């Protein structure tokens, strides 16, 4: 990859340590993805905020970077480990809280927007189609490319941060029109009924495809199903985009394929608690949930992870009151994935409608997972 003389100087450290680190990252990913040059981006969305995801070395890395690192473009950040407003009522150890606060302070010093969301595409106004952005957080990268019409590679927490500090990203892979064309197709041969089915499809697609995949026979995808599909697709593989239609090699996704994925992730027939949100719920999700639970009551603890901005809007619209009346526990700025709020010493298994959540609950939190659609959760777990 060719760097301009200014970029070379920054790489050598002439414009500070943070920019040198950022260009070192961009150079490595540029070489890996066979980019010829860097191009400007308008918006970076950075992952690596929750202390559970980056650990002590991550805290130290960000503190060092924040000594002279400053965002060059609009930068939003992923959820942290807990809801800071409700933290005193959550059972968390002091060390976790202290380390989490150090991460947040480091990001703030660099000038990020305190979004704490994994659904930036739902919380913020979208730039015009075709705009180059740099999204880490796999569900957001897939959604941005596939639904929002933006252009991003499936960035890592570090590469999106490097793009944030420099305002640039390598011109490669899904940023290049020609390379956005799907290299394989998946024909869906049964009628998908709910968000769990779309998640199973996404998880399957991530396992078998790379870069970009085309789905046939799932047109008119709702936002809710698109979120579930994007999140699951980003979880299981390296694919960063889907389109609709046909593409070269095509394989089928039928009930048998769906059952195999479900068997991998559905590891319990029951759950002690319910979690909704991975990705976080947006205003429309909260509106739907409010309608569904009106006049009902959850029989067990139901944690509802949502973006703070969505919660505030939903509150004004009266949705949160209905959900809280039904016993739903609203949590903002955090999410199911790698949450410290679900501890295997206290919880054996969790009910969720999220395929992405199911993967991380099984593999990181090490609890059992009972997969159910939202409709079934409300029907079977409410009175």
């Amino acid at each position, binding site marked *: 990859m060719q760097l301009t003389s200014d970029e070379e100087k920054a790489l050598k450290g002439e414009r500070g340590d943070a920019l040198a680190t950022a260009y070192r990252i961009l150079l490595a990913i540029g*070489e*890996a993805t066979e980019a010829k040059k860097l191009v400007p981006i308008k918006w970076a969305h950075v992952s*690596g905020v929750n202390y559970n995801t980056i650990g*002590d070395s991550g805290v130290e890395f960000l503190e060092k970077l924040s000594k002279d690192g400053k965002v060059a473009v609009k930068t939003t950040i992923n959820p942290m480990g807990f809801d800071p407003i409700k933290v005193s009522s959550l059972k968390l150890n002091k060390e976790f809280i202290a380390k989490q606060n150090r991460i947040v302070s480091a990001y703030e010093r660099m000038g990020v927007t305190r979004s704490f969301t994994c659904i930036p595409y739902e919380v913020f106004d979208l730039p015009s189609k075709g705009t180059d952005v740099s999204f*880490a957080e796999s569900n957001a*990268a897939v959604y941005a490319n596939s639904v929002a019409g933006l252009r991003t590679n499936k960035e890592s927490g570090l590469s999106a941060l490097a793009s944030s500090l420099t305002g640039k990203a390598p011109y490669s892979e899904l940023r290049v029109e020609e390379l956005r064309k799907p290299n394989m197709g998946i024909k869906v041969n049964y009628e998908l009924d709910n968000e769990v089915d779309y998640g199973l499809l996404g998880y399957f697609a991530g396992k078998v495809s790379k870069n970009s995949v085309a789905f046939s026979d799932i047109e008119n995808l709702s936002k809710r199903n698109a979120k579930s599909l994007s999140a699951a697709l980003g979880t299981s593989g390296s694919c960063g985009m889907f389109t609709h239609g046909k593409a070269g090699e095509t394989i089928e996704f039928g009930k048998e394929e769906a059952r195999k994925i479900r068997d*991998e992730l559905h590891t319990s027939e029951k759950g002690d608690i319910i979690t909704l949100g991975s990705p976080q719920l947006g205003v429309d999700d909260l509106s739907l949930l409010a309608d569904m639970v009106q006049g009902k009551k959850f029989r067990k603890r139901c944690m509802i992870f949502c973006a703070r901005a969505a919660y505030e809007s939903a509150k004004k619209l009266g949705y949160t009151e209905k959900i809280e009346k039904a016993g739903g526990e609203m949590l903002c700025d955090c999410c199911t994935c790698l949450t410290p709020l679900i501890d295997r010493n206290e919880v054996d298994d969790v009910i969720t409608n999220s395929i992405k959540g199911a993967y991380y609950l099984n593999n990181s939190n090490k609890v059992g997972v009972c997969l159910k659609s939202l409709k079934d959760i409300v029907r079977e777990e409410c009175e």
Partner: protein
Amino acid sequence: MLEEFEGHSEGRMRIKCRAIVKGNGEGEALVTKQPINFLTMIDLKSGIVKDDKHELYKKNIANKVLVFPNAIGSSVGAYSIYALKTGHVAPEAIVCSKADITTASGCAIANIPLVDNPESDVFAIKSGSTVKVDAANGVIQS
């Protein structure tokens, strides 16, 4: 066994590849054709593969030359690679079929030599054999 591989000479295998993160690393090879999610599949304190569905289950990646296709899943996996390095349990070098953004960015800040695009089949390298990665010149020797 002689002349089994392309570029084979004097009983050693020499594979040309592309340098992504420069440096030198030598160690025992640990080879898998299965991709890796660094955030969920590796115990970051020990370097041991903790995913019982992965073929490297219970194997330790610390101080090895790790040969695998590419990373998958979480965007935070790059931080996991860095955590392995600061915890002194990172691989000595990494060989990918096709390096991805997560692996490349993690190796870039962790200073782990990384090569990819090998000219011949790196999965033919036997786990346990000694491998030398010269990422400055883009050569793997075993």
